[in-house]
């Protein structure tokens, strides 16, 4: 490791910061009751929670891609009055305490919420359903996708798109053949981060969706509940979540080192042709 370029105290502080993040995880791993680890994480309730978490997080990620890509495109490629405000609002769930998000969702889609009675008339009942879990997760995960994709769109610029358009490509063709391939790595890493955020969602789910095994009790809610009676089970399940999170971050890094710039243009030119 070559750290000679930096003042020593900067490196020292960085190490302290790194330990601050890593040490609690190590401390938790040390508390795991290893002989009972497998039975603990494969119990009925744990399996139900893990499966539900994976199912809902994947659905939420798909939802985020479906609406997040258009949102990022609109924010990066168009200009309209109040765009800066819209951008800040879109990113709000990122900084909002999730429980506040849950309350907001409740007052929108709940039975007595803003849209609740209309949805009720349509025969849609979101309260205490798996749909409510997916909505909570999508709500908190969406900004991750929009943020990472919009940044990528801005950094690749519009040169290739302009060239494509002058060569007669229509808007859809430009989007499909040039813009999206250019930002594909960012899209994938954004989706992976959204998935990770959805997997960890707790506050909004607790407030908005409730907690019932197999229907709304996701892994974080199961951890929270198990802690009441069986802290060993809670720690074991926490470790499962940590492992999943590490894997997810690893994938996101592999796809595109976070914060790195534009992908190499030649490859992109090939695709655009």
């Amino acid at each position: 490791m070559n750290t000679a370029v930096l003042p020593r105290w900067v490196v020292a502080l960085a190490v302290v910061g790194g330990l601050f993040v890593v040490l609690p995880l190590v401390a938790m791993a040390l508390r795991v009751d290893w002989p009972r680890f497998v039975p603990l994480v494969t119990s009925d309730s744990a399996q139900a929670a893990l499966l539900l978490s994976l199912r809902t997080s994947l659905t939420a990620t798909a939802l985020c891609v479906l609406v997040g890509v258009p949102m990022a495109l609109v924010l990066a490629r168009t200009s309209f009055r109040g765009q800066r405000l819209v951008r800040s609002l879109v990113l709000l769930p990122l900084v909002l305490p999730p429980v506040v998000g849950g309350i907001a969702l409740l007052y929108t889609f709940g039975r007595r919420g803003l849209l609740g009675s209309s949805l009720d008339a349509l025969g849609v009942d979101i309260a205490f359903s798996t749909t409510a879990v997916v909505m909570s997760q999508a709500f908190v995960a969406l900004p991750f996708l929009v943020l990472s994709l919009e940044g990528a769109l801005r950094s690749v610029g519009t040169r290739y798109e302009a060239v494509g358009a002058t060569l007669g490509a229509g808007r859809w063709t430009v989007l499909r053949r040039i813009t999206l391939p250019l930002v594909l790595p960012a899209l994938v890493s954004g989706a992976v981060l959204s998935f990770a955020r959805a997997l960890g969602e707790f506050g909004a789910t607790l407030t908005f969706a409730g907690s019932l095994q197999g229907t709304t009790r996701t892994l974080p809610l199961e951890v929270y509940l198990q802690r009441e009676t069986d802290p060993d089970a809670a720690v074991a399940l926490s470790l499962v979540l940590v492992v999943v999170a590490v894997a997810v971050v690893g994938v996101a890094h592999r796809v595109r080192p976070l914060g790195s710039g534009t992908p190499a243009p030649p490859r992109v030119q090939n695709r655009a042709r």
Partner: protein
Amino acid sequence: MANRRSSRHRPGTPARAPARALALAVVLATTACGTSTPDDAGGDTIDGSITVFAAASLKDSFTELAGAFEQAYPGTEVSLNFAGSSDLVTQITEGAPADVLASADAATMGKAGDAGLLAGEPVDFASNTLQLAVPADNPAGITSLADAAGPGVKTVVCAVQVPCGAAAARVEQAAGVDLMPVSEESSVTDVLGKVTSGEADAGLVYVTDVRAAGDAVRGIEVPEAAAAVTTYPVAALADSADPATAQAFVDFASGPSARAVLGAAGFGAP
């Protein structure tokens, strides 16, 4: 979420304010005699600062009791920490500085005892009973526990892992009713939240929760709840830096004057 309760003292509940004022007056009157009791000699003086860890359902009552205690024993200072009972025990086990623990059930206090955290025997100081809470307009027209188990009725209970859920299971058993809840929450506050927001048609919560929620919910008596009365124990903790003051608070909270405050909040005698 626990903080929500403090904002519930709305003008809509006129009957409560005088009752509370009266309760406080009784406390002050009865403890006024206590102040003249001369302090024991040596380091046993009751004038220190203590931290009381109390179950979330005690928030209103213990906030009031702490004030009364400070007035009864000038120089004392009581800091309060409210959370779910098992959370409190976990916090104390992991070294949180606390002098007194008041938990919402005997089982949790038993855990604290097993872990060697207590200075003496816990004293039961209050009891609580479950009740059905329904939204003020009672949309599902619920009048009994059997109604709450009806088809299409959205009923919420605590998960059996937490004390209110264990009590709910005993009530269901006593009544021979299977509730089929749409959600099993981790805390009684979450159950109440689902009812006050109108998401749920009914929820099994404590009488004191219904009382504290004011006009937002209506309480429906469940006769079978008598089968699952929860007792609240309080105990001084082994690691207390000020055992005399801690014990004084335990005596105070389990004494007759505290009864008035707790009774006004809906708690029964232990």
